[in-house]
């Protein structure tokens, strides 16, 4: 077997230029594959982080029936005993922090213009432990619980033409029923601008303290949701679902008419779109692999054709058909191993670069496109993992060997007499 390896290795490098072209095709194909997978994984990870850190947190508790109507922002389905719920869950070690919030329809009125947006009323002492709004403040100050000002997203501020210190009128809609439409208007000062990196939040959200919103919306001490942040770093950690079920069980035992949802249920639409995108990308990956495989098959078929007489001579020397088959499979395997190694190296370097520096997209050109698919803007960061490199290496090598099988079989099946006569 050792001699077959030696012979195969030298055969691979017999025609240096062709071998170089084949290696290049395999390596570049696999490198692009790695970069693409890393970028897709990175975009998914970044999107999920953005959703969890600025929209959903890990878990939300709603009044029963709220979730189905959540897009209508039904203020009547509110949690009045949120403080009790908080006390029931206060001894759970896996819970880092809880926050009462109200999501409501709102609009910013400036002169004759009125721009609809999403109002978020939050507890300024709790929110920084749950969301990244405070950490994303570009200008201005974080709100105090009794503050009369608001924070708005940078993109929303740009749309309306607002800056920190401006006075503006906001409309807070307490009921959007056609028959029972009610709202309140407040004159407020813009206290700060935030830029979370999530276009859904930065382009649509205005924030004010919970107490002021409760008063303006006549909500008493109620809230539309109780948001929970857990002590987990990875949003895909299965313990999140386990905790959701436990919290639901506790609420059921207490007789509370509440429902508990994890971020995966709250971000269901994103996950469906992401899955579809992954499926589409798989097609591109398949095409890239087929191109690399065809390069190898072509090289191996050329080798069989050019070495036909040599194959006949090997048979004359007493080499068995199975040995000739193995010889060509090893040659394909060597192309696969070296091509995959170089591909992994190049792809790893590319993936690492995009993980550190990111892929900067002009938001003017890509803003709308990216916002419609992913909650991201400006920079995409790749997520390079050893798994991707190992998987690509194994895949590249296996494909090379499998692709070489037909040419190898063709070589092994050659009739020695015909092969020796071949010109």
């Amino acid at each position, binding site marked *: 077997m050792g001699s077959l390896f030696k*012979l195969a290795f*030298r055969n691979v490098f017999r025609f240096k230029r062709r071998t170089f072209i084949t290696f290049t095709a395999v390596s570049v194909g696999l490198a692009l594959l790695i970069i693409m997978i890393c970028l897709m994984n990175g975009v998914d990870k970044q999107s999920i982080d953005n959703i969890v850190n600025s929209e959903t947190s890990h878990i939300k508790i709603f009044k029963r029936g709220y979730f189905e109507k959540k897009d209508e922002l039904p203020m009547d389905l509110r949690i009045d005993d949120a403080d009790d719920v908080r006390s029931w869950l206060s001894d759970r070690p896996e819970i880092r922090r809880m926050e009462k919030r109200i999501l409501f329809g709102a609009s910013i009125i400036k002169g004759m213009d009125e721009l609809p947006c999403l109002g978020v009323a939050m507890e300024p002492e709790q929110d920084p432990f749950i969301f990244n709004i405070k950490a994303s403040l570009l200008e201005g100050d974080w709100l105090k619980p009794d503050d009369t000002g608001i924070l708005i997203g940078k993109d929303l501020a740009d749309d309306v033409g607002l800056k920190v210190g401006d006075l503006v009128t906001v409309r807070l809609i307490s009921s959007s029923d056609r028959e029972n439409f009610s709202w309140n208007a407040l004159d407020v000062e813009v206290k700060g601008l935030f830029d979370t990196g999530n276009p859904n939040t930065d382009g649509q959200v205005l924030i004010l303290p919970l107490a002021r919103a409760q008063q303006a919306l006549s909500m008493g001490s109620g809230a539309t949701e109780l948001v929970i942040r857990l002590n987990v770093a990875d949003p895909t950690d299965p313990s999140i679902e386990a905790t959701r079920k436990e919290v639901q069980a506790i609420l059921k035992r207490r007789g509370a008419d509440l429902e508990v949802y994890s971020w995966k249920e709250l971000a269901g639409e994103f996950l469906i779109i992401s899955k579809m995108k992954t499926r589409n990308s798989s097609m591109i990956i398949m095409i890239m692999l087929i191109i690399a495989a065809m390069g190898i098959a072509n090289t191996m078929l050329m080798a069989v054709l050019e070495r036909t*007489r*040599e194959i*006949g*001579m090997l048979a004359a*020397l*007493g*080499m068995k058909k199975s040995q000739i088959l193995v010889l060509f499979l090893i040659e394909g395997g060597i192309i696969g191993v070296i091509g995959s190694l170089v591909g992994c190296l190049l792809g790893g370097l590319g993936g690492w670069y995009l993980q550190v520096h990111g892929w900067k997209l002009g938001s003017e050109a890509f803003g709308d496109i990216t916002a419609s698919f992913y909650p991201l803007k400006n920079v995409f960061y790749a997520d390079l993992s050893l798994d991707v490199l190992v998987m690509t290496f194994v895949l590249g090598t296996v494909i090379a060997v499998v692709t070489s099988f037909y040419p190898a079989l063709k070589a092994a099946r050659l009739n020695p*007499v015909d092969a020796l006569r071949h010109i």
Partner: protein
Amino acid sequence: MAIIRVDNVSKIYQTNGIPFPALRGISFTVDPGEFLSIAGPSGSGKTTILNIMGCLDQPSEGAVFLDEQDISRKKAAELAVIRRHTIGFVFQTFNLIPILTAFENVEFPLILKGDLSAKDRREWAERMLVDVGLKDFMHRRPSEMSGGQQQRVAIARALVKKPQLLLADEPTANLDSKTGKEILDLMLAMNEKTESTFIFSTHDRMVMDFARRLIRLRDGRVESDETRG
């Protein structure tokens, strides 16, 4: 006891469905240690009978016995084993493996044979290359050697495993007459030195003159079979 017995062998090739008889019922025997030439014009069937005796091809009719073993109906894998252990080939176009050195080419059949240690293989291959006069060319690749030198390597490769039978298909056809004569001298010397039987095909008068026995073929039949002194 004959090393080769060819018994009423016919070979019919099908070309586009049309039968073409290459051999028409030929018979002869070859004794161990003979230095035999099979001669004849193109299409006379000399390469075909060489291929059949060399276990590369099988007759359509008749039988061939190698060392009293019928090789006419054996399976491909069995024939490969016989070739590996019993038969050495020398080709008109040398057919060395271009990526291996002269030494590695000669060592290769011993690796396939698989019954020698690496040390023995090295010793056998080196000794054989010395015997064919290529002591100083062992580590050259075929592309770095002349045609005569390449054919010497091919002879060394054929003989290194000590085969019972060495078959050479027009071994001097690609060489100039001086080099061709040197190769024939070498083959004759090796025939006397080893116990191998040499059978080679040719249509060259000079080569025929070297043979101790000459079988002439014409149109797939034995035209004459003469033994020289």
